[in-house]
């Protein structure tokens, strides 16, 4: 890529919110996104919505990717979106993944989580979605 066309890579905060420590999925996704050319910052475990938004603002991230496997997604995913609203940072895109039933996916999208990925999703699908969402980089 020549310097003239170089674009700043999209920066993504990847986070485990809530008490759940199952981090296999989040780590695999984080590596795949990094390999796809994104700047990925993994927060580690047990983040509150406030901590995640703090990290996103500090790192000047465009995207927050959340992972939950404990069933707390209906509480914690919207809480991250609310916190972004409170901090006037609604330009940051939120997506999520985990064990999330179909009905919940529809409800979460209404509440401002842009995209949700469930078990068995090919990594490429997540990358493709990001490419489409940020066609010109950050």
């Amino acid at each position, binding site marked *: 890529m020549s310097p003239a066309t170089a674009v700043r890579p999209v920066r993504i905060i990847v986070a485990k919110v809530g008490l759940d*420590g199952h981090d*296999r999925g989040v*780590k*695999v996704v984080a*590596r795949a996104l990094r390999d796809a050319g994104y700047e990925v910052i993994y927060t580690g475990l047990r983040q509150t919505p406030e901590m995640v938004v703090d990290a996103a603002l500090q790192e000047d991230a465009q995207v927050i990717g959340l992972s939950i496997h404990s*069933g*707390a997604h209906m509480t914690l995913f919207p809480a991250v979106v609310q916190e972004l609203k409170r901090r006037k940072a609604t330009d940051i895109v939120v997506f999520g993944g985990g*064990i999330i039933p179909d009905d919940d996916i529809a409800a979460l999208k209404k509440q401002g989580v842009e995209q949700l990925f469930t078990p068995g999703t*090919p*990594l490429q699908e997540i990358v493709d979605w990001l490419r489409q969402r940020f066609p010109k980089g950050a």
Partner: protein
Amino acid sequence: MRDPKQAWKEDFESSPARDDGIETSTISGIPLQPLYTAADRPQQLEEFPGQYPYTRGIHPSGYRGRLWTMRQFSGFATAEETNRRYKYLLANGQTGLSVAFDMPTLMGQDSDAPTSRGEIGHCGVAIDSLADMETLFEGIPLGDITTSMTINSPAAILLCMYIAVAEKQGIPASQLGGTLQNDILKEFIAQKEFIFPPEPSMRLVVDSIEYCAKEVPQWNTISISGYHIREAGSTAAQELAFTLADGMAYVDACLERGMRIDDFAPRLSFFFDAHIDFFEEIAKFRAARRIWARWMRDRYGAQQERSWKLRFHTQTAGVSLTAQQPELNIARTAIEALAAVLGGTQSLHTNAMDEVLGLPTDKAARIALRTQQLLAYESGAANTVDPLGGSYFVEALTDEMERQAERYFKQIEALGGVIPAIEANFFQKEIADSAFRYQQELEQKRRLVVGVNEFTVDEATPIEILRIDPKLESEQVERVREVRKRRDQARCSNALTSLRKAAAGTDNLMPYILEAVRAYATEGEIMNTMVEVFGIYTERAVV
């Protein structure tokens, strides 16, 4: 005449080979030959079940003497609701209980802690104090059943609650049977439900082992678990090696405390995953017994045969279940359960087909239990001890598992042992690497998962999901606050003060925790008291 083996080799090589790009190695990546023969295992002595090194099983009679315990892991919502599910499972022929706790309970915090929001009752039952534990086992005589409790950082507290409920039922601790998971090392390695740093965490584990050796002698004080390591993405050999290495670390810690090996080793138990690669799993179980027996006898010098025998629980692989075409999970679980049985498991949990989507419904839970009954009574698998013993393939794979595990033991030793290896992120990185490699194999279709990356259908999943009523959260919060109001405050605060002092010293903490539990101190209060002394562990996040 051609030499038969040479002839086969020539015939094999001239036969057309499938050209679909699918891996022929095990799911863990162990390369396999197309055929195994006597030459793959020359000069091996014949082994027998019930005899050292127990490759063929710890009981001479296999399942002819006694079937495995069918122990379905279960718990959700409130103690009252879970109590109803237990009675349902027992009425349907289940032979032991296994408690699943919710995330706040697993993380040692009360339901009214701010970070419990949204987590209460979702992946297990919410237990805040002895009052909830009394409800959980209401009408279930604890002297007649055995109970397994999957809890780690706060394990000592939940065990004390169980002992206290039994006291109220008039059953002495010496008559209680069951298993406490209590395996903190694999939390640091894989499941990540740690609270205290490794050293005080190990102290609590040793305290409970030491206490039970005297007071609760029939209790399995720890269930050294590979399950979570495997589910986090490890290979079979990593699961085997890391689990047994953890086991040896607990043995070392108990010896350091001054305990005698034969006083605690017989109560150590193990917990493995049964994944979908059938023969590899069977080999793993067989190798586990052999390695443990050798280490216990030769390295640790245990005198009693009971100390040499590795007893284990198995759960089929949650990670192998698919949200797509979930009915297929019944077939997957049956294959995995059969591997566990042929590997000689002492107890078994079969996953319900809908567990990949949420908590199992009554119907799915019953099908899972029926799968075990079908294996026990229809398949014939229980009639012959170690039916695959002597199979060229299974024996060679068992040897290979053992070799790989021994290599890992050397690596861990070189890092200074299990805890330094945890702090160096050794296990975490090994597991994440394996998980990523497997995911790439799926993406490249070098491995197929039916219904996921091949043989897919484009239809929604019309499957019923058990939902947790959101009202439950506020009710449970109310309940714990009520307990705090009702109890004898002086007794409770005295108990917590004594516990804090003891934690700062070197006493065994179990009697102090038991007194706090009896005084209806909540789980969160007891944990926080210990946190004041022990501090909190934070993992360095690595991808």
